[in-house]
Structure formats: structure tokens, C-alpha cells
């Protein structure tokens, strides 16, 4: 999907970028319920109500209410900066210092002819140092901050979120949490966590919903009436201790050995060290 080079220090090598994600969700399009007609979007002046031909449409930035700056596509393209085909690594950081919240979209780098050797040297060194290279490059129309690390045999690249794009807990309106749980409550809750502990096997989770949606589509196609489910209001637990006891009843304590799979550094996000203390 993208061809370019990776540059770290004076070493450069040609690569290809591949998206890892291939979404399999059921895709719908907008239709008119009355006759099944396809919906098209048309553009009108919001005040004049006159339809505006597409060649007259521009982008505008609203500085304040009623005060805007209209921009040409060429001007916006110019602001993107030079379209360099280089992923330039500026420095390296320890992989376990990056919380997964910073990772946006994952990609895999492939080597292009002639680049295999440098690719593997960088891969081996990243694996050894458990480091991640931080750099920037232009992906489609936007300069992206990226993290480049080793994952299995491949170089894995994530586009990254900027720190100011992450919401902090102080931005949220959080109700005051009541007193600390008692030791008994915490002990029972931990036992409940332990009783449900498993080794992570992602392939065990199938998208049953995708299948259920397809079944609905087929039912509807066969002319069947679909039942609309009722909405429920969320309810809290009236008696916490009783609920913990009832949940634990019949569950054997089952401690899993903590597996430390030998994956690449990017597969090992840091666990936040913030102690769960009283707010």
C-alpha cells in the first residue's frame, strides 16, 4: 500500500507498508425504508436552499462565529509539507514505557528487494534492546508520528496519538468513589478474578454477532417479521458481599501460572504502576 524507505542514522533501506487490520464487519448502505431506494447525498446552500455544483465547493475554517477563512485544496496540500517517502527514525525509546493508549493503527513493514539485510539487522537489534524507534512520515495526506518495533519476525509500525489527544481522568466528571473496599471484599473479588483467569487465546473469540446479523438479514429476506427487543435500565448490586459470595460459590480457586511468552517488545505494553489508592 505504501512504498518508501526507513532511515535510521545513515542506514537506509527500502520497505513496503501493509495494514494489519482487515475489518470483517457487515457493511450496510443507506436506503429509503419506504421503497428500498438508494440514498444519495446532495449539497445545498444552508441559507439559499440552492443546490451547489461540486466544483464550487471549498473548505473553510471557522475562526469565530460568522468569521471564516476559505481555503483551496492546493493550499491545504501545501500545508501538509513535503511528501517525503522516508520513515525517518529520530530516536529510540524503551518499548515498555509506551502505554498502548498511544498506539493508533498497526502496520507491518515488508522488505523490498535489496533491503532484506538492513531490515533484519534493525529487527534483531530492536528485539535485543526491547526498544522502539520513534519517527515521522507522510501517510496518505497526513504526517504521522510512528513507533517502529520488532514483533515476531517482522518490523511492526504503529501510528501514534499525540499526548494532547488523550483524555486525562481530570477531564472527566467522576463521582467521588466511596471508601476503600474492606479486606474481605477485596479478597473475595480477587478470588473471583482468579477463578476466571485464563491464558489469552484470541482465536477462541469469534464474532458471533457478525453471524447473528447475517442470520437477521436472511430472515428478513425470507419475509419474516423481526422482533424488536425491549430496553433495560441498568441496575446496581444491592448487596455487594452477598453477590460476591454467590458468584464464588461453586468456583474452584484456579491460579494460572503467569506465562511470559517470548514476543517482541511491542507486544508487551507497560502495566500502569499507579497504585489503586483512595481518590
Amino acid at each position, binding site marked *: 500500500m505504501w512504498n518508501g524507505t526507513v532511515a535510521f542514522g545513515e542506514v537506509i533501506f*527500502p520497505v513496503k507498508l501493509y495494514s494489519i487490520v482487515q475489518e470483517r464487519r457487515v457493511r*450496510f448502505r*443507506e436506503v*429509503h425504508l419506504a*421503497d*428500498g431506494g438508494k440514498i444519495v447525498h*446532495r*449539497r445545498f*446552500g444552508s*441559507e439559499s436552499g440552492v443546490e*451547489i455544483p461540486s466544483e464550487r465547493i*471549498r473548505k473553510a*475554517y*471557522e475562526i469565530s462565529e460568522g468569521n*471564516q*477563512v*476559505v481555503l483551496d485544496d492546493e493550499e491545504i496540500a*501545501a500545508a*501538509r509539507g*513535503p511528501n*517525503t517517502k522516508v520513515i525517518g527514525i529520530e*530516536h529510540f525509546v524503551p518499548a515498555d*514505557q*509506551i502505554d498502548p493508549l498511544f498506539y493508533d493503527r498497526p502496520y507491518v513493514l*515488508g522488505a523490498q528487494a535489496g*533491503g532484506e*539485510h*538492513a531490515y*533484519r*539487522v534493525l529487527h534483531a*537489534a530492536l528485539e*535485543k534492546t526491547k*526498544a522502539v524507534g*520513534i519517527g*515521522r512520515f507522510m501517510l496518505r495526506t497526513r504526517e504521522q508520528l510512528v513507533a517502529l518495533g520488532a*514483533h515476531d*519476525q517482522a518490523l511492526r509500525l*504503529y501510528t501514534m*496519538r499525540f499526548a494532547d489527544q488523550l*483524555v486525562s*481522568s481530570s477531564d*472527566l466528571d467522576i463521582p467521588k*468513589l*466511596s471508601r476503600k473496599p474492606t479486606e474481605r471484599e477485596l479478597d473475595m*473479588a480477587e478470588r473471583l478474578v*482468579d477463578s*476466571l483467569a485464563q491464558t489469552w487465546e484470541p482465536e477462541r*473469540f469469534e*464474532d*458471533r*454477532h457478525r453471524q447473528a*446479523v447475517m442470520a*437477521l438479514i436472511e430472515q*428478513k429476506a425470507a419475509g419474516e417479521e423481526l422482533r*424488536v427487543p425491549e430496553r433495560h435500565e441498568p441496575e*446496581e*448490586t444491592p448487596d455487594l458481599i452477598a453477590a460476591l459470595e*454467590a458468584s464464588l460459590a461453586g468456583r474452584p480457586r484456579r491460579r494460572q501460572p503467569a506465562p511470559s511468552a517470548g514476543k517482541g517488545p511491542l507486544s508487551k505494553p507497560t502495566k500502569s504502576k*499507579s497504585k489503586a*489508592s483512595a481518590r
Partner: protein
Amino acid sequence: MPAGIWNGTLSFGLVAVPVRMVSATRDLDVRFNQVDADTGERIQIRRFCEAEDQEVAWEDIGRGYDLDGQLVTLTDEELDAAAPERTHTIEIEEFVNLDEIDPAQFDHPYYLVPSSESEGTTRAYRLLRDAMASTNQAAIGRVVLRSNEYLVAVREHNQLLALTTMLFDDELRSSEDIGAVPTGSTGEPKRGEVTQAVKLIDAMSRDFDPGSYEDHYRERLLELVENKRKSKRGKKLPAVEEPEQEEDEATPDLMAALKASLERARRDQ
């Protein structure tokens, strides 16, 4: 304060915690409105049915799916029937060690916030948060958002319950599927080269300081707006110079380049 996108119950055994889901990210991208170049008037999008060329109200629009040539239409309410219980409950199915999950599987991050100040809600919230923090476990469950089911992982983060939607395993391509990843004897590195590259990485290493990275694209767009406003819509901005054509060739002498880079990195530190 970001708006809640989902209200429901996180359930853990027989313990139920009413929660609100809010996005953990904020959109800081520079957003443009579409306007008419001639009048500056804001554009409004209207939906028309192609069949009779008539404008259609939002509530008369449904979802269409092409099933082998037959168009099947469903309403959002009918779609909820695919998973009625999971549209308002996240049931924790199991707990796993967070470090075992490949972050490529993470889709979008959210926070779960207690949805009321009542004692019952905040106590159960805090108990689950503390129990996960002390055991270093993440809870795995599912939720239906906007008529799609997501696998989710919930963990303690920043003294809150953080939730991330996850892709299903079959939505991630493995490196083997992609090919192009050199393995075996192709380009096999020599030990001296790796040692030299490790030295270079060490010399170019620092702590991760997320606040130190600025979004150049956002800055340039805002600068463009500011310049254009000052120039009173008169002057054009200078075009960006196109970069010189780079060559898609690998460094010919890897060891020499590594050594030269290391020298430079050490000088620059």
C-alpha cells in the same frame, strides 16, 4: 468533558456496576466546513432517494444489505435483535494477563465511569478496579456499539477502569499472510552488525516523553489559516518545494553506515 457514548452495566459474576463509556481520546484535528466558493455560504447535505428523486427524512432511512442481488433493508431497532443482551451489558467472560494481548488488536480506547454517585455503584466500581490492579489482570468481555459487536478488554488505568475495543483474531493479518517479511537465510544478519546496530540504538535512546511530540500537520494547517486571514484573502501562500527524488536503494555498505551513524550519534548527544 467528552460525551458518553454508551450507558449500561459491567457485570462480574453476580456483581453489577452501572457505568458510562466515554472516549479516552479527543479529536484535535483541524476541521473544515464545506462552503460555496462564490458566496461563502455553508453547505448542508441532504439525503435523496434515487428512485423518486425526493428528499428523505433521517427517520425514513434504514440499512440496506445486498444479499446475492436482493436488497434487504433493516432498521437499527431490528439490528439490535442480533444481540439484545449485549447492547446494554458487558459481561466479563474471563480475566487475562494484560501483557499477553497484542496491542495490534486494540481498536479504540475509552474510560468507564460510574454512572451514578450512589454508594452501591461506586463501591462495586472501586472494588473491581482495585481487584484488577492488585492481580494485574484485564477483564475480557463483549459489547455492542452502534450495532457492531466488539471484543473488549477492561483494565485499571489512571485510577479508572479503562476499556479498549478489540478486533477479532480473524480481522488481523499475520506477518506470514503478508509475506514480504524476510526470514530464513534471506539477508541474515551477522553478529557484528547486530552488535553495531545495538550500539547505535543505545546512543540514540532516551525516555519516552509523549508531551514532547507536536502534531506538525495540525500546526501547519492552523498557520495556513492565520496567514490567509492576515493576507485578507489576497496573497497566495508559496507552494512547498517538492523534495528531491530519493532513491529506493539500500545502503551499499551497511557496516560502514552503522559505524558512521554511531560516531555522529555520539557526537550529537
